[in-house]
């Protein structure tokens, strides 16, 4: 098949729109046992912190209907080891790398971006504004658009201008558009929608929270309609801003849903836990789905759901039924 799968995230071109989501692809070494990392659009790293972090105690996860709840607490080796060990390894394998950053405040995010800018080979930066795990039961940066803007501004200021900065937002806010606008004003080059959604599971045997931290983040197919809705609303309001969509992507058809809603690329997270080669399978399925729709450039599908019926590229959408 000769479908053109290339997508652009601002100035960066990726071979295809399927990305491995932050925190769901390990260091890359684990998944490289199952597929060639150069075969996916990019791998987004687990959010990198300034210092090493031990994360939350176990149990850290619980299964929920069509999803899971997790509270890993951003366990990681810190930026120094990341730059010395993990990033070079990924680049040596030909992977395109998006680096996710997580800090305790705007200053720390700025510091992370500064350290990162010393390295070469990074395709884009993702600012994790929305990880619901850390300390404070529930609240996070994106709960306040001004705070989110300060963080984005700090990262943008310390990042090389040719590396796009994506702000990753939560969906459990009343108005993702307001938040997106605040980030855009702080010069975010794009948005990443969505992170996990705050939730809790209770162990039916102990009647106590199933993950040690109490609250956790819900991910997986369960949250897909929430994510698609969020992408659709934000793209309608800010059509020029590239979006990395994601949340519950399981198949190539799901990627199509996100692209149609307005995403330029799509991150695959939790489903990789179920199917370690999910990312490459999804690239294949996407290619097939596009062929069925008679579309030969994946970019033409971006935002299709916002256009009147029949206005899509190629032979157009399949007739219903």
């Amino acid at each position, binding site marked *: 098949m000769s479908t053109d799968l290339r997508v652009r995230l601002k100035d960066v071109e990726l071979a295809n729109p399927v990305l491995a989501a932050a925190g769901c692809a390990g260091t890359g070494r*684990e*998944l490289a046992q199952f597929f*060639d990392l150069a075969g996916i659009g990019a791998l987004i790293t687990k959010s990198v912190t300034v210092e090493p972090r*031990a994360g939350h105690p176990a*149990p850290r*996860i619980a299964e929920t209907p069509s999803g899971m709840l997790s509270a*890993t607490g951003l366990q990681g080796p810190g930026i120094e080891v990341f730059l010395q060990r993990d990033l070079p390894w990924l680049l040596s394998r030909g992977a395109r790398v998006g680096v996710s950053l997580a800090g305790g405040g705007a200053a720390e995010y700025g510091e992370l971006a500064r350290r990162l800018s010393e390295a070469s080979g990074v395709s884009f930066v993702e600012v994790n504004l929305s990880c619901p795990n850390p300390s404070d039961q529930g609240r996070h940066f994106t709960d306040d658009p001004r705070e989110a803007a300060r963080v984005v501004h700090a990262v943008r200021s310390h990042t090389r201008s040719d590396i796009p900065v994506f702000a990753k937002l939560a969906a459990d806010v009343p108005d993702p558009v307001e938040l997106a606008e605040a980030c855009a004003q702080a010069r975010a080059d794009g948005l990443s929608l969505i992170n996990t959604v705050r939730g809790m599971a209770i162990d039916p045997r102990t009647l106590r929270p199933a993950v040690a931290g109490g609250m956790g983040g819900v991910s997986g197919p369960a949250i897909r309609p929430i994510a698609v809705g969020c992408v659709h609303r934000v793209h309608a309001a800010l059509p020029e801003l590239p979006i990395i969509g994601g949340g519950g992507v399981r198949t190539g058809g799901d990627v199509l849903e996100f692209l149609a809603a307005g995403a330029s690329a799509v991150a695959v997270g939790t489903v990789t836990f179920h199917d*370690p080669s999910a990312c490459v399978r999804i690239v294949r399925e996407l290619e097939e789905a596009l062929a069925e729709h008679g579309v030969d450039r994946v970019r033409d599908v971006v935002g299709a759901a916002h256009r009147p019926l029949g206005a899509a590229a190629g032979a157009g959408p399949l007739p219903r039924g």
Partner: protein
Amino acid sequence: MSDFGPLQMRCPVLTVRRVDAYYAITVVAPGIAERFRAGQFVAAAVGGEQSSMLLRRPFAVHDVKPDYGGTVEFLFSVRGAGTAWLAERRSRDLLDLVGPLGRPFPLPRDPVNCVLVGGGSGSAPLFPLAHALRRRGCRVDAVFGGASADRVFSAITARRIAETATFTTDDGSFGVRGPVTAPLGRVIEEARSDVVYACGPMPMLREATAVAAEHGIPIQVAVEETMACGTGVCMACVVPVAGEDGITRMVRACVDGPVFRGERVRFDDVGTIPFDALGAPGWKPAADTAAVDPADREAG
């Protein structure tokens, strides 16, 4: 990709049998059978294509055989919806497996005396281990326990493989009443054991490690911690384990384990982040602290 790493396969089911309180399922999985070494496990997808159960279920491999190009057997008890679904499989159904996963039991170079300690379904991985040890000329003694007679694993096979086999049950319905670790010290002495291999619940592993320490012999333990992926990407299954450098790190049971040296596992701190673990809240790095265990450096 790799010739040694785990594979993902849709495996035809050969048989599902009841064995006491357990089910034994055998599937055709040539590549997995070929790569398998004792102590490794497989992770099964449950519930079919449109399942609401997203997480794979880990099971220790109990046996591999060369039939049909290679078969894999594991034993399980029905705990929740996932194992209930597994128990309903019939021959010719397909089972989606990833494996073999995890680090196997290290085998001694010399024909030493080994004692195997297993609790409940934790005994499963000790059977292929026993065979491997016997092939190296090791003496094998077994101490297997369970809640009741029907939860003591394959007593007959254990008797056949092992020089001596001791059984315990919580309710006294079979063998000695009491925990599986109670007779361990005596067996070590009588068999002049050089090393212990243990698998089962954390409290049992802690106790076995204490007994091994009392007798001044090493112990290898295979731990069970809640897992989501089994492949090392989700960071669900962490256990506090001290490295060769003495520093405690939160390591993944699925890829850094499930087999660890018993004395390295901080059993008393399982389910917590020990204050002195690398990256614990308030933790400050010493000048020479490595983020990864020096022994693991080559892993990359």
